[in-house]
């Protein structure tokens, strides 16, 4: 048994290097690793992800719907707010939303839906509906990319029954790789926020006799609004 944490660490590294038959100071190996990390080369990107300008949105919508989300395209902030209000009504949920400080969400014309009570911050146990914004999305599998922080707290994505997500049409890209590049532009090379959630539908489980049931632990409903 290793006596200290350092011993344990050394033990494992020694074992690995012995098994591989390498020395720790091997410039060639180090260079190979540094190169891959710095360049992060892409592998094969599926053809369906390399679509034209308008197709990502069609593909994105199609995939998300197949995975059980409600998807709506809205032309303006006004339409977005109306859609959110209407959605809460359809789901029989009280007109109450928890959201973060996201500027795009804040800039929506909320006075048009004056009866929606908006609360802010991390989600609380009895929040039934929340609203977030996805910083980007990948059409290839209908996947939203949401990042942690005061703008869109992570817990908004998981605690409510109904989660509404707004994404700008111009933020929808074809592939995961393009989405990662967008994140690199925001956070810098080699950095990610505390939590990056790739969300592709409402919560589900098939554990019981392979029957798909929604709302296993996360939201039962996912409502996606494409703005623009």
């Amino acid at each position, binding site marked *: *048994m*290793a006596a200290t944490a350092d011993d*344990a660490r050394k*033990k*494992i*590294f020694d*074992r*690995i290097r012995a*098994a*591989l038959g*390498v020395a720790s100071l091997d410039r060639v*190996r180090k260079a*190979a*690793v540094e190169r*891959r*990390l710095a360049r*992060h*080369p*892409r*592998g*094969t990107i*599926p*053809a369906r992800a390399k679509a034209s300008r308008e197709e990502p949105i069609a593909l994105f919508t199609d*995939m998300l719907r197949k*995975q059980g989300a409600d998807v709506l395209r809205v032309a303006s902030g006004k339409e977005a707010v109306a859609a959110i209000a209407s959605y809460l009504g359809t789901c029989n949920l009280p007109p109450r939303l928890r959201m973060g400080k996201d500027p795009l969400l804040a800039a929506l014309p909320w006075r048009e839906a004056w009866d929606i009570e908006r609360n802010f911050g*991390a989600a609380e*146990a009895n929040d039934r509906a929340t609203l977030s914004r996805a910083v980007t999305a990948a059409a290839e599998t209908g*996947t939203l990319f949401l990042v*942690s*922080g*005061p703008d869109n*707290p*992570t*817990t908004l994505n*998981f605690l409510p029954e109904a989660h509404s997500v707004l994404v700008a049409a111009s933020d929808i890209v074809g592939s*995961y*790789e393009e989405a*990662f590049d967008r994140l690199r532009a925001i956070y810098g090379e080699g950095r*990610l*926020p*505390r*939590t*990056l*959630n*790739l*969300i*592709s539908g*409402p*919560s*589900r*489980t*098939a*554990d*019981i*006799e*392979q029957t798909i*049931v929604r709302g*296993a*632990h*996360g939201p039962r409903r996912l409502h996606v609004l494409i703005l623009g």
Partner: protein
Amino acid sequence: MLNVKRGFIDKRRAAKAKLPEFDRLRAEARELKDHTLSHLDLYLEAFERKVIESGGQVHYAPDAAEARAIVLQLCQEAGAKLVTKGKSMVSEEIGLNAHLKAAGIEVVETDLGEYIVQLRGEMPSHIIAPVIHLNKETIEADFRRAHQRLPHGRRLDQAQYLVAEARQMLREKFLAADIGITGANLLIAETGSAVIVTNEGNGDLTAALPRTHIVVASIEKLVPTLEDAATILRLLARSATGQEITTYTTFVTGPRRERDPDGPDAYHVVLLDNGRSEMLGNEFADMLRCIRCGACLNHCPVYGGIGGHAYGSVYPGPMGAVLTPQLQGIDRARDLPNASSFCGRCESVCPMDIPLPNMMRAWRERDFARGNPPLSERLALKLWAYAAKRPRLYRLLAAIAVRNLARRGGARGSLRTLPFVTAWTGTRDLPAPQGRTFQSLYARAQSRKR
């Protein structure tokens, strides 16, 4: 059992058909994993740097006992009374739950399937679908037994009611937990991130709500970059359940940041060796490419016939047949690599191109070298090999044997019983030989020609 497997088989086939690049991605995934493993020490160092940079801590566990000790210590230091857990095969491998329980900590599995096996005191029977062996009536009985304070007359006869009840019960635990423990499907060196995939969202509630998040992951989970993660993620869900991607694919990087309104205050990654480093240097290195998709289980006729519990291991099926002897030793686990017909279907569907039958055979070689097979088997093999290396003797013995068997088979054409091979005749007739060996008939025909 077989019906359920059909579902996964058909879904995987459909998912593969929808992605023409599937086989290209397999080749690339294999390459990137091999590259990572051959530079594992360096990628581990890079990963560690990044985790620390993001405010997290990294711990090293050379074996299962140390991993348990580290996690327990972290729990005790935090004064934890309740721990929620995301699905983690590694945590089962090291026997974490029992260890924490023994120290007075309540541990709650949150993946629905894992929650159910926990209620039953069982092990999961499938690495992706833990209660694939149970029907809903059984689960209903388990819930009624475990959730005593809920009204007796409530409906639990359909999956949706069972799920709703689990959601309700577990929501309390999620919110009350002091510590959340998850595994990791991937570890990314470039950013110091752990990737957790679920359909339920339980991994996220486990990671985000408590004050401390502990990730327990084995060292071979490492990949270099986000792009490498993308390649593997494109194969994982498709191979496991036929989905394009799991509902939630989460990249966790360190504890709460300065302005984060939620998230854990403390973030720990416990890196487990437990035999992986040894595999790097032996004939089982390819097994380290495994991404735990379960495709091999779904396509295995042995697994389909006997189910996961029959393996007596955390890891069943073909991947378990290769990994378990490494973890438990070949003496104890010898049945796993031996109980295979080598049909090869596992290898043909493995997204990481792992030569599973070849590695099972390598275990059999070790098993044989240790003299483990029963005496009757070793003797039979010895006799067979002795004769096979001596063609003239072989022809003589063969001719005698087949004449004898043919006579026994008689007009019936098959033998219902035969001493020494009751293993065959217990369930199958032995077809009677035609009576003469080919060699003797051919020799006779040739001599007639001359």
